[in-house]
């Protein structure tokens, strides 16, 4: 019992800290600064005034493979970056863990998969991922031009690794961005993400 209590106490102490700083739908998205695959430092605040999509990724995760293997993710990237939406693919895999890549490898992947993110960002120590409470790959976020988090959650409505399900699913990122770009509110702001766990530094 004492151990349990101690545990509870600890989790209680930290819970408020996390919730103050962490990302929450309909509140300001916390700012961050990360290196991209070309060695450039990129901050979220650089894109104030634009829609920003955050995509947590790990190229070896079967759920990410589902969306890249089928060209689903890349076509979303192409479609929305053309509409002046900033697309940031973030890799939070720690060194030695699945999905961790060098900058060179990241650029190769982008080219090979015909991906079109605005930047591929590295978050090796997992700070940004934890700040956004990113749990899985993929885990998607939409930030509006005022810097508020408009959507957080799954990429679509069918939780599976089967590419055949993509066509049947409702894509939450498409739905959210289309509503926002049309000046309408996002109908589903928060969903439970699905996919592989993010391989954070322990």
């Amino acid at each position, binding site marked *: 019992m004492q151990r*349990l*209590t101690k*545990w*509870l*106490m600890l*989790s*209680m*102490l930290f*819970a*408020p800290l996390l*919730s103050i700083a962490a990302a929450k739908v309909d509140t300001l998205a916390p700012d961050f600064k990360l290196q991209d695959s070309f060695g450039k430092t990129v901050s979220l605040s650089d894109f104030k005034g634009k829609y920003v999509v955050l995509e947590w990724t790990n*190229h*070896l*995760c*079967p*759920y990410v*493979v589902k969306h*890249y*293997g089928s060209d689903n993710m890349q076509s979303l990237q192409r479609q929305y970056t053309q509409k002046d939406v900033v697309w940031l693919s973030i890799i939070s895999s720690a060194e030695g*863990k*699945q999905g961790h890549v060098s900058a060179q490898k990241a650029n190769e992947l982008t080219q090979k998969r015909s991906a079109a993110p605005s930047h591929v960002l590295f978050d090796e120590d997992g700070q940004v991922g934890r700040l956004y*409470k990113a*749990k*899985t790959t993929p885990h998607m976020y939409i930030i509006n031009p005022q810097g508020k988090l408009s959507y957080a*959650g799954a990429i679509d409505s069918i*939780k*599976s*690794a*089967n590419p055949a399900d993509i066509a049947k699913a409702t894509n939450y990122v498409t739905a959210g961005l289309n509503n926002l770009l049309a000046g309408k509110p996002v109908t589903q702001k*928060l*969903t*439970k993400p*699905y*996919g*592989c*766990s993010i*391989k*954070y530094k*322990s």
Partner: protein
Amino acid sequence: MVRLLYLLLLIFSVGVFAQNTATGPHIEVALVSEHNQVRAGETQWVGILLNPDKDWHTYWLNPGDSGEAPTIQWHSDADIEFGDIHWPLPKPIQVAHLVNYGYEGATLLMVPINLKQATKERVAIRANLSWLVCKEDCIPGWATLTIALPVADTITLSEHQNLFEQTRLNLPEKHKDTAQFEVTSTHLGLQTTLPYQSDWYVFPFRGDVIAHNANQVWAHQPNSAQVVISLSDYFATPSEPLNFLISDGKSGFYVKAIPNNASNANAPPPSQPLWLMLLFAFFGGLILNIMPCVLPILSMKALSFTQSQKTNHWGYSIGVLVSFWLFASIILVLKEAGSAVGWGFHLQEPLLIAGLAFLFTLIAMMLWDLLPKGINLAGVGQSLTGESTFTQQFFTGVLAVIVASPCTAPFMATALGVAMISPMLDTLAIFTALAVGFALPMTLLSLSTRFANLLPKPGAWMQTFKHFLGFLMLATVVWLAWVFLSQTSSFGQLWLLSGLLGFTFLIWLSAKVNRVYCVMSLLLAITFAAFCSVKGTQTTKVVSEQKNNHFSAQKLTELRNNDHVVLVNMTADWCITCKVNEQVALNNADLQALFEDSKVDYLVGDWTNKNQAIYEYLGQYQRSGVPLYVVYAGNHSKQVLPQVLTPDIVINAIQQAKKEINHATSN
């Protein structure tokens, strides 16, 4: 690598066609039957055996933070009905910072089948299976598994029979007891009964209910057990029933939990439409006219209309309106400054209670014609009975509101309670409606001769009626003396009653003597009244009453005024979270030791039954339910604690409050 993976998947999904087993990376899967044959009209069992490598796992129906439950689509060439998967007991599997629910080692997912009619000699059963097998990395797989079974009248157990028997021992049971859940801003509380003491663990069916990696703390009561778990970031439907599996690893049972509506701790304060509140306030004001404290004043006023036609029509109404607005403004200002006040806040001040008691006694004496003649007591007598100017009318209105205030507090509770927690303009609107209702009858009387004609004709009866009304005023004094007792002590009340006796005597005396002595006597009466009131309020309660920890607003105010640290606990028997907090945090020995300090107090408000005082208190904190924990450092500061407590949270808050008081009082 990706392509390789796809290639592998392709091989597995195609290569295993028409077989009852398949192999994927780190897993073997098989479709097995408990019997070698099928018999029509009978429930039999087939199952999917998932056998991952050591350290790899598969998933339960809710996979937890990540992962995916296996899916099976059944097909047959015969008319076979397939039931749902009977999931064996899962276990929490920690993967890095996440927790998944699933199975390590071989697991059989059993499904009941029923062949409707024996129309064929042989039936084929096909399962389109998908799975995810994980260690830290995950690999999905798909396979189509097939078995063919002869249709027969006699059936024999297959080689897999042991597997089915073993699995049955590991299935949860249905649970008949009820379960309830409630949601706070951060936690889910679940209450149910447990068959015996063990290390129970809660598995929700849905993945968006609890934080899967959160600790689960149980509190045990004689007839029930409660657990409080951090809420999932994605939880959004607190009004639907939730299904859970509760397991200790060896056995388990399903519960369907219904929302604990009584608590509703997370809901915003009830939003009644404003127009309804305005209506309540209006009729409340109207009825206030016949309350014992107000009626005498207004009756006198009304009767004066029958005697004099020279009446200013609007003075009274404006006096009432301005007084109510003044009250509302004071409350709004105090609220803005952070004070927790409600309507009738001034009645929590014993000195004001005493003052009202003297005022009401004076009015009673006036009604009994016991006041000295020729002395115009602040124009009261004049304005109530004679011709009236605007100013006199205005102050009659003010007086009416002052004498009405003790009656308003208990009577107008609903509308005023709402006004206290409403935005500023709504508060003003509600007070205005109250004032209009209150002023309406008198205004109508003064404006319309038709209404005034409804009043009885003046005559000798008026004197008797006036004397009778005096008793109504004294009735209010009795009530005030009783309130005074609960605020001070029996000694305090003795001071007040003695004061009233001396006061009435001196007033009576002043009417009997000539001019100079009369004034002296009146001044003495006022001095005596003030002295006794102050003396009365200075008495403190006896010690035994002080440690009696039932919450009341007066007690809280008093303790705060005396620079005490106060922990207020608003609880109810039906509140799951409250019970867990009381067991886990508030029963802590270190905390109990802190309460031994004479400057630290613990007040418990029990909201099990409806209680207006607690409702209003909760409203001050924009809550409409319990639990609510507030720690006060006298009047210097207050801190609202989280809805789920640990001993340290409470102890730290109390020690912080003590420091603040020391700091404030040493300056």
